[in-house]
C-alpha cells in the first residue's frame, strides 16, 4: 500500500469514527480515481467505440453527450451500489435510440468496452502492488458486471415493450370488417395469423355479421404468409359458426403454400367455399345476393 492510499483509508476511518474494513475502502478509492481521470478515460472509451464500429447511427455530438452520461452513471453506480438511477437512465436511453436502429449488441458492446477501459486503467494504477490489484479487481468486477447486466436487461425490456406495443397496434388495425354492399362484408386479413388474432377475428366477424346483417362474408387471406394447424382449425370453426348465424363465407386468396399446408395437415375444408382471388369472391358473393353486374357500354359483366 502506498503512502497516499494509506492516508485516505486513515481519513475515512477518522471521518466515520469506526473501523471500516479495507475492502469497503477500495470502491470509494477507485471511484475517486475514475472521477479524477474522467475526461481522459471517456475519450479513450469513445475511441474504442469508434474503433469497434458501434453506434454509427448516432452523430458525434450525440455520442459525446450519451457517453458522458453513461460514464457518470456508471461511476455513480460503482459508488452507491444502487442501480435504480441507472435502470431509469438505461430505459430512457433505450427509448431514444431504439427507433434509430441501435441494436442490442451495440448497447451491450459499449458498456463492456467501458468496463474494460476502466479495468485497464485500474490495472495500470495498481499494478505495482499485485495483492492490492487483486482486491481492487475483486471489488470492481462484480459491480461492473452488475452494471452491464442492468443496462442489457433494461434495453431488452424496452425493446420488448416496443415490440408488444407494435403487435397490439397491428392487431387493432389488421382485421377490419368492411361492409361493401348491403348484406355483404369483406374481411381482408394481412399478416401472420396467430391464435390470439384468430380468436379476435372470430369475434369481430361474428359480431359484424350481426351488426351489418350480413348474408355473405368474403374473407380474403392473400396477405397471410402462412397458417398452422390450430389456426386453420379455428378458421374452419369460424366459418361454421358464421353459417349458424345465417351467413355464407367465401374464402379467397389461398396461396399455393397455404393450400398445400391445409391439405397436408388434413383440415376438413369440404364445407368451405373457396375461390381463387378477391375479385372472384366478390362476384360469387354478388351472385349469391342476387346482384347482377353489367357494364354500361353493354359489353356485359364478368
Amino acid at each position, binding site marked *: 500500500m502506498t503512502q497516499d492510499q494509506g492516508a485516505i483509508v486513515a481519513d475515512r476511518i477518522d471521518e466515520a469514527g469506526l473501523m471500516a474494513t479495507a475492502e469497503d475502502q477500495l470502491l470509494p478509492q477507485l471511484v475517486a480515481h475514475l472521477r479524477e481521470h474522467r475526461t481522459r478515460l471517456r475519450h479513450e472509451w469513445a475511441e474504442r467505440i469508434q474503433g469497434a464500429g458501434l453506434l454509427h447511427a448516432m452523430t458525434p455530438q450525440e455520442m459525446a453527450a450519451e457517453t458522458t452520461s453513461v460514464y457518470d452513471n456508471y461511476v455513480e453506480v460503482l459508488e452507491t451500489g444502487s442501480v435504480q438511477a441507472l435502470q431509469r437512465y438505461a430505459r430512457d436511453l433505450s427509448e431514444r435510440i431504439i427507433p434509430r436502429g441501435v441494436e442490442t449488441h451495440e448497447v451491450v458492446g459499449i458498456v463492456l468496452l467501458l468496463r474494460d477501459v476502466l479495468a485497464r486503467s485500474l490495472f495500470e494504477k495498481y499494478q505495482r502492488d499485485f495483492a492490492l490489484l487483486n482486491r481492487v479487481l475483486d471489488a470492481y468486477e462484480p459491480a461492473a458486471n452488475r452494471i452491464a447486466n442492468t443496462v442489457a436487461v433494461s434495453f431488452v425490456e424496452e425493446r420488448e415493450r416496443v415490440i408488444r406495443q407494435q403487435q397490439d397496434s397491428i392487431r387493432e388495425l389488421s382485421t377490419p370488417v368492411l361492409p361493401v354492399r348491403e348484406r355483404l362484408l369483406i374481411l381482408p386479413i394481412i399478416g401472420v395469423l396467430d391464435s390470439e388474432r384468430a380468436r379476435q377475428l372470430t369475434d369481430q366477424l361474428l359480431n359484424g355479421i350481426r351488426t351489418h*346483417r350480413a348474408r355473405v362474408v368474403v374473407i380474403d387471406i392473400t396477405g397471410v404468409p402462412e397458417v398452422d394447424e390450430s389456426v386453420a382449425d379455428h378458421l374452419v370453426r*369460424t366459418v*361454421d*359458426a358464421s353459417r*349458424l348465424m345465417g351467413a355464407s363465407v367465401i374464402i379467397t386468396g389461398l396461396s399455393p403454400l397455404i393450400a398445400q399446408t391445409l391439405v397436408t395437415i388434413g383440415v376438413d375444408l369440404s364445407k368451405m367455399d373457396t375461390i381463387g382471388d378477391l375479385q372472384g369472391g366478390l362476384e360469387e358473393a354478388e351472385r349469391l345476393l342476387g346482384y347482377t353486374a353489367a357494364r354500361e357500354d353493354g359489353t356485359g359483366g364478368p
Partner: protein
Amino acid sequence: MTTTGPRLVSILRQGPYLIASIHTALDDTQMTDFQHDLVERIGRDRSRGVVIDVAALDVLDSFGTRTLRTIAEVARLRGAVTVVVGIRPDVAFAMVALGMDTGPLRTALDLEEGLDVLDRLVAPGRSTSRSRSTPGSRTA
C-alpha cells in the same frame, strides 16, 4: 305446452308459416314438449315453413341442438321447411367448438331473414297460394 306458469315458448301463425319463439332456457322435457307441440301445429295449420327463433338463448347444448335437428327433419316429412334464426355469435362459436352436429339445419340471422329464406325456398311451389302480406321488396 302442459307446463303451468309463464309461457316458455310461443307459436304464432303467419300466413303459410309458423313462427316459434323460445323465450327462455328450456330443460330437456320442455324441449321435447316444444317439439311435439310444434310438429302437431304444422299439420293442423297446413304450414309450409317454420321459423324457430332462439335469440333468447345464451346456450344451446347438444340435446337442444339435436332436438332442433329432429324438428327440422320431422317438419320436412310433414311438408314444411324449417329455419332456425337468432343464434348469437358466442353461442354459434361454442356450438362449433364443442363439435355439435347441426347437420342440414338451415339457419338465418333473425326472424326477418328467416322468413325471407322461407319465401325463397317455399315460394316456387306456391304459385296458387295467397300471397303473404310482406313489404314489397321482400316478395319472392
